[in-house]
């Protein structure tokens, strides 16, 4: 397998230098840019497999970079170096079409892991599930912007947190998520809450969706490790 090409965009030279050499040592090919305009120019020339992009930058910020790429039908994966926190930000995140988020300051190992995970999920040239308005898995339909859920044509009600959790699991199907990772996805930051919090929400999702933990169609428990969405997930269309 050839080394993945990573375009790293940040206006702080110290961060560019440190992360570029770290990712290079981890077996990736890295180019850097100091602002959004430079990033788009380099992207057009170099065709990276993925962009890792800061948000606040001079000339053109990270969110605008993603919007411009998506508007041009370019689905190169992007990891934005910011936080997805509040639900309002989450719907903005859905519209802007970034593939993942990582909040500064972070462990460079964590960035490496996220980049690999996004690359594993990405199908070249195709929009990722995180950009879909609707997701479908068998009988289950999730409208991500309206936050509504149907099972076999009948609408069901989930609490806001359970619906966020289902959203995260369905946009990252077939991946094992630790409880800590799921909590962070729910809150946008690490919260030292009991891992029971995630178990409670998964129990709610199963109860409401009528999913059997022993023979799951949707959410599978991976013993002592975490959870995985085990159904096949497709993009849905709005009726």
């Amino acid at each position: 397998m050839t080394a993945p090409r990573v375009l790293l965009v940040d206006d702080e030279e110290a961060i560019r230098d440190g992360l570029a050499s770290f990712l290079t040592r981890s077996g990736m090919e890295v180019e850097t840019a100091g602002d959004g305009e430079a990033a788009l120019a380099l992207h057009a020339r170099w065709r990276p497999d993925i962009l890792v992009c800061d948000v606040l930058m001079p000339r053109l910020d990270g969110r605008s970079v993603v919007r411009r790429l998506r508007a041009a039908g370019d689905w190169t994966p992007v990891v934005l170096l910011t936080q997805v926190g509040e639900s309002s930000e989450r719907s903005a995140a859905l519209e802007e079409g970034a593939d993942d988020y990582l909040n500064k300051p972070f462990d460079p190992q964590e960035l490496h892991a996220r980049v690999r995970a996004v690359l594993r999920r990405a199908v070249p040239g195709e929009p990722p599930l995180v950009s879909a308005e609707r997701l479908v898995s068998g009988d289950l339909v999730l409208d991500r912007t309206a936050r509504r859920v149907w099972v076999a044509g009948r609408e069901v009600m989930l609490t806001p947190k359970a619906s966020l959790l289902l959203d995260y699991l369905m946009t990252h199907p077939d991946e094992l998520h630790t409880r800590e990772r799921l909590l962070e996805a729910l809150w946008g930051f690490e919260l030292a809450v009991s891992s029971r919090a995630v178990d409670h929400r998964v129990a709610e999702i199963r109860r409401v969706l009528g999913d059997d933990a022993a023979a799951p169609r949707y959410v599978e428990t991976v013993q002592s490790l975490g959870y995985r969405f085990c159904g096949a997930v497709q993009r849905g269309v709005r009726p």
Partner: protein
Amino acid sequence: MSDARGRRVGPLLAALLPGLLGLLAAGALLGSGRSLRVVVGAPLPVAVATVGLLVTAAALAGAALARGRRRAVAVAASAAERAGREDERAAHRRFLLRLDHEMKNPVTAMRAALPGVAPDRTLLDAGQARAYDTLEQQAVRLSGLVAELRKLAELETRPLDQEDVDLAQVVQDAVADLGDQAAASGVARTITVTLPRAPWPLPHVRGDADLLYLAVHNLVANALKFSPADSPVEVRGSDDDGVVVVEVADSGAGIPEHEQAAVFDELVRGEQARGIPGSGLGLALVRVVAQRHGGTVTLRSRPGQGTSARLRLPAV
């Protein structure tokens, strides 16, 4: 503001009107040039009583007016104080966000650069390895601090879930988790939980179960941390007039009086906390969670005897 003025002027006009009318009528009668007299055939005791009652009524009315004014002044002062406190909190929040913004890039750069200093740690000699570990640990520590401060600033403003939360369950979960942790670390602790069953169980509250867990967890964790391993920690639930109270008490070293006012501020670590790991943000987080749920958290402590923290939240 103009509404408030209208409310004060209205009654005054109503009170003055009879007087004005009387004066006008008297003027008109005098002007007519006729000599008119009223002869009242009331017995003297009635007349005396009437005069006395009228004087009392006038005095009461005057006192009521003065009280009203004092109350209005007090209300305005407390509103100004509240607004002042909110301004202060908002300024504080902006400061935390600025701090986060200014610190996150340097800390990210340090953590990114560090692995490049020694890609293979096994090649370092003992002194170099120690220095490297120090750099790494302290960068991680700074990193955690930045993240915690941002979390606090964010929890002050982000919309909260409004679910029905069984606080008794939250207390039991937090105590079970901390009890397990203590046992796993080899120092089993006694945590006594007293929750009411009669005449009714602890009322539920509305809010975010995860954050309420965090608040109770931090209070119990603090009690465990700042009391001897062989001393008990007690957690009591009660309800009083629509308020649910969770009290966490320990018989630890207590907090000196001069430190008590500041314990809920960020990054405050008391004398007793020296040598005990912690960020100084645990109680600040409890305060934010309490406030966001329309509640309060207070502390009573006696040096040498112990500390009791009370989390009060409005019942459903």
